[in-house]
């Protein structure tokens, strides 16, 4: 019968396993991740999370500058009426692959500043 694998019967393997354990432990300690802290009765220090910076929500004007200037000089919102902008923005939404929610924000900006 083939004997089971045993470290006692293979001193070289045992030495290798010990060496790996030692190196692994040192590496983990150096990385500061796997060595558990000593147990004390003191309460754990309170973790203070930095205040999350509020993310800026893009406005219609910013989206307009961001997308329209990619291909052509920006047009003045006053060049067209609010109703004309509706057709033009749908055209540009398809042509420039604008997401409809962003296109709606751009349209709102243009209509609020439109010519008539």
């Amino acid at each position: 019968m083939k004997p089971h694998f045993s470290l006692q019967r293979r001193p070289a393997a045992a030495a290798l396993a010990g060496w790996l354990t030692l190196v692994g432990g040192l590496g983990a300690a150096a990385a500061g991740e796997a060595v558990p802290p000593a147990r004390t009765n003191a309460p754990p220090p309170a973790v203070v999370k930095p205040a999350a910076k509020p993310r800026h929500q893009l406005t219609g004007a910013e989206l307009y500058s961001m997308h329209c200037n990619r291909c052509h000089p920006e047009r003045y919102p006053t060049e067209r009426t609010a109703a004309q902008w509706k057709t033009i923005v749908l055209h540009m939404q398809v042509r420039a692959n604008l997401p409809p929610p962003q296109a709606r924000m751009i349209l709102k900006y243009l209509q609020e500043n439109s010519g008539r």
Partner: protein
Amino acid sequence: MVRRLAVAGCALGLAGSSARAQVSQSDFNALREMVLKLNQQVQELQQTHAADAQTHQKDVEELQLWQQKLGQLPAPPAPVPAVGGTAADGPVSSLPRAPIDEATVNHNFMILGDAEFQYAKAEGQRGTFMLADFAPIFLYRGGENILFEAGFDFILQNNAPNAPGYTTTVNLSFAQLNYVANDYVTFAAGNLLLPLGTYSERTAGWLNKLPDNPLARGLLPGAAVGAELRGAVPVNDQGMLLNYAVFGVNGPGSADGTANAGALDLGGNVGLRTDNMVANLHGAPSGGGRVALFHPFKPHYDFELGLSTQAGEWDNAGTHLWSAGVVDAALHLGANCEIKGEYVRSRYGSDDLGMINPEGWWLQAGYKLAGLNLDLPGINNLELVGRYDVLADGMGTRTSRYSAGCIYYLTNTLLFEGAYEFVHSNGPRIPGNQLLLQLSYGF
């Protein structure tokens, strides 16, 4: 207190009886008539006052209504961009506006487009004026989600030698019906502008910045008849997008039905043959698509990288494949600096020359001198443009071209463009070095 009032009442009663004794009947009647008139006038005044109060109440209610509407409008006045400036830069006051009643106006139909007029002086040729392009785009919006758009190109060309006059050619450059199915998918069908790179959708003279197309675009079809799904998926809330397009079209065909290399026709095969048969020229349609990542850093600062491809049969027998791939990139560093380019590689089999592998690329940079903040007359309307493009046709001819150009913005959409092109080629140099002056208008 009661006793005092009783005494006073008796005194007044005695005084009244003595006064009645002194007034004649006629005086009493006149006085009575006067009192009745006064009473009538008082009633009229009361009625007028009541009407005024009602009107005032309506005015107050209307005023409150307008104040509520004004309170609902966006607080800061929206900015208006200037030429070479940014919409998000500076605030510009604007008057609050009552929404237009859509039922009373119809702007569903519109004409946009561009026009270019050119003066060209090619090496070894006489300089000439020409109508480079008049390209109106007709738009019809059917409701919120449907748009039909069609673009035309009007071209003038001399008649054959010894024949007077000229020929006007009208080309349908694209015509497509778009249906916005939802926030992520738009369905389009018709003669589609193919999303192979980005140039085919930005060819107008006032968008291109140089009067000539890049040489490598000659390796790709500009439009084809078929159907397409396209859209964009937001990657984050700061404007980053993943754009996509998937299409199936008839694909390139053979000009004479053979599979000889010179017969490759990128612009034909529209589904209706000259014998009025509705049929593809070859057995299988062509398919392709584009995927691109658009990464804005802030308004006017962005980077876009796209990959696109198309493949399918091209000869009538369907024994050879044609395919093309494009890598496109564009970088904007502020409102005044733009760098963009494309790498195009194509591959198709032929009976006479075997497998052919044309390729080319172009890189273009533009800088608006407004970015220098110089206080010199007219300088803020100038933009310098340079481009280098290369084309190897896969059959031994390699052509390279340097273009140095300048744009003067007469308005934000009326541009005067000039460029000098230095052409180097180991094949026939047509047209060779040339000077191009162009007036471009986008409308």
